[in-house]
């Protein structure tokens, strides 16, 4: 890939770049059909041990089905799933070394917090003294020591989420599956819990597979994200790669917001390319991509990489255009501008309000210039 070193900035962990690393979970050409509906279509994925892996997609993209097949509630129609080299076909849920945290939490309403956490350990036949010890440990881990004797309905949503988490990690599973783990929490609690989940995963050394529709959640927590659409994998990459080097227009549009300029490659060499977008805008990029195609390519550039100014940029021949301010959304930390170029194109630009008072105030209808650097965007051919 032409993009320079987009490694995970979170931690030094990237077994997927090591050809010698053994995959831990493998989906091999897995297809799942429910009647006429194909939920998962000939999908292959590899997940490594201790990885925090996110399945991201809109509802109905098949991400939950993947999780349920891994847990054993559904069997693939065709293809196979391997866990640590062992084929999981025919292994019932209660015999899989995998635990799941359900979206609804699925806490047993007739049992106390303590009994809920102890449930899996009892099934294992663990001695009651050991169970008590482990439960106390788990309660401490999720900071619910004083709620041990409560029933689930006596807890808040956040507390229930923690009980569900404690119950699912109590058995020390090899893999923890999390189905929209933070979906039912409010925004503030969600942000706090994201970091707690990451710490927990690090401390226990577990492999996490999390299903989510919330891209921010996936970006924050995951080592790698698989973007799914209609039962197929669109791209698997680190959050940074997904954001800065999306592999297709679908991924580019799905994650964050994106300006896509469709045009024709007029010049191309090893290190750069020129793309003519309409008559007024010529883009010169240092990320030419791997396309040999001339026409119908897209140049994708994120709004925050576009500068908006009333002043004319120093270099006007390339990577800049003139237009007028069409819409302004002031969000406090940033201001989003929609600039209508003279050829009618709308360009989204995000300006970070690093100063309390803007030095170059722009308002509706003002003439303005947009400009960006040669490495601001990438060329997409799909």
């Amino acid at each position, binding site marked *: 890939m032409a993009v320079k070193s987009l490694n995970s900035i979170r931690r030094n962990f990237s077994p997927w770049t090591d050809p010698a690393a053994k995959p831990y979970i493998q989906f091999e050409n897995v297809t799942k059909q429910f009647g006429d509906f194909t939920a998962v279509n000939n999908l292959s994925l590899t997940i490594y041990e201790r990885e925090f892996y996110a399945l991201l997609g809109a509802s109905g993209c098949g991400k939950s089905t993947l999780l349920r097949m891994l847990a054993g509630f559904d069997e693939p129609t065709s293809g196979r799933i391997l866990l640590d080299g062992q084929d999981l076909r025919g292994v019932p849920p209660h015999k899989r070394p995998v635990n799941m945290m359900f979206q609804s939490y*699925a806490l047993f*309403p007739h049992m106390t917090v303590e009994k809920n956490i102890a449930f899996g350990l009892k099934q294992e036949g663990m001695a009651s003294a050991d169970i008590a010890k482990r439960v106390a440990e788990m309660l401490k881990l999720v900071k619910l020591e004083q709620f041990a004797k409560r029933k689930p309905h006596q807890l808040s949503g956040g507390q229930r989420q923690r009980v569900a988490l404690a119950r699912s990690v109590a058995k020390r599973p090899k893999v923890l599956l999390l189905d929209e783990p933070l979906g039912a929490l409010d925004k503030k609690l969600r942000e706090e819990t994201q970091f707690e989940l990451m710490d927990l995963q690090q401390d226990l050394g577990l492999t996490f597979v999390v299903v989510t529709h919330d891209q921010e959640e996936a970006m924050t927590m995951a080592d790698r994200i698989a973007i799914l659409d209609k039962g197929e994998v669109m791209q698997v990459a680190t959050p940074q790669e997904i954001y800065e080097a999306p592999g297709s227009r679908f991924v580019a549009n799905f994650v964050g917001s994106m300006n896509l300029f469709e045009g024709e490659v007029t010049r191309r060499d090893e290190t750069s390319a020129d793309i003519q977008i309409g008559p007024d805008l010529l883009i010169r990029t240092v990320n030419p991509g791997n396309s040999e195609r001339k026409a119908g390519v897209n140049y994708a550039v994120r709004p925050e990489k576009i500068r908006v100014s009333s002043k004319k940029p120093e270099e006007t021949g390339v990577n800049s255009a003139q237009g007028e301010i069409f819409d302004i959304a002031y969000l406090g930390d940033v201001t989003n501008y929609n600039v209508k170029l003279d050829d009618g194109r709308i360009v989204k630009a995000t300006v970070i309000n690093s100063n309390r008072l803007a030095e170059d105030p722009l308002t509706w209808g003002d003439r303005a210039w947009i400009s960006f650097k040669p490495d601001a965007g990438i060329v997409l051919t799909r």
Partner: protein
Amino acid sequence: MTQSFAPGADPATPPPAATSSGMHGFLRGLSGKLVIIVPYLWLLVFFLVPFLIVAKISLSETATAMPPYQPTFDGLTGFLSKLSSFSFDNYLWLTEDALYFKAYVSSVVIAAISTVLTLLVGYPMAYGMARAPTTIRPTLVMLVILPFWTSFLIRVYAWIGILKPEGLLNQFLLWTGVIDTPLVILNTHTAIFIGIVYSYLPFMVLPLYAALEKMDHSLVEAAQDLGCTPTGAFWKVTFPLSRPGVIAGCMLVFIPAVGEFVIPDLLGGSQTLMIGRTLWNEFFSNRDWPVASAVAVILLLLLVIPIMIFQQAQAKTQEQGR
């Protein structure tokens, strides 16, 4: 003074519509009470008053007259003087003749066995209904209720045709060669059990279905995920959570089954001892209204206790918040 945007903060503005809301509130309170008063009045006139009359008759002495009893209590005038003349002889009589005790015990035993059998038949049905695709569930509920559209009496009569020695069941079994002499089912306890299970099945299935249907299936999946076999998950999660339905269903079958008259009379034959039949015989054959009334009062007390247990159990589940 700081500017206030809250209109209510101005002390000069009276609370809106204070006077009219008083009258409106009164009417609403009245109509709310009326909704409760009407059924209670109904119960008072058609249940409590007749029961007091029965209780009064049970304290009277038998007489060959029309009505065939001697009143010992006329209104409030002679209340204190007559109090001493209350006769508990009828109740004593119930303890002296072993027939009544046997009839009560036999009724409770038959009702209890029938209830357990109904539960065993009804639970899988309700479970199947609750697990069925949501689109066909209303149809399944409809099918359970459907027998109510035919007279109860006719349906019980129909069982005679099935169970009698030359009936459909025996003909079928003889034809298939499973048996070579007809089974005697009619006029036995077996026939009563079949009759009660058949007649009261909907009362068992519907509360069980209600309890099982609202249960989140992911609870069962969670149990399996944590290492339970499907059977283990049923006993540790599904069954405990359906307990309110089990209790409701059992009470709805047990209580009427204790006092059941038609089924033992038609299917159980003459030798069946059940309290409903004993009551009938005392009333219509012996024309001993006071003893019959005493039997009825004791039967009622016998049934009130299970109802109280039932209500306590319900209060407990409500407390659990599920």
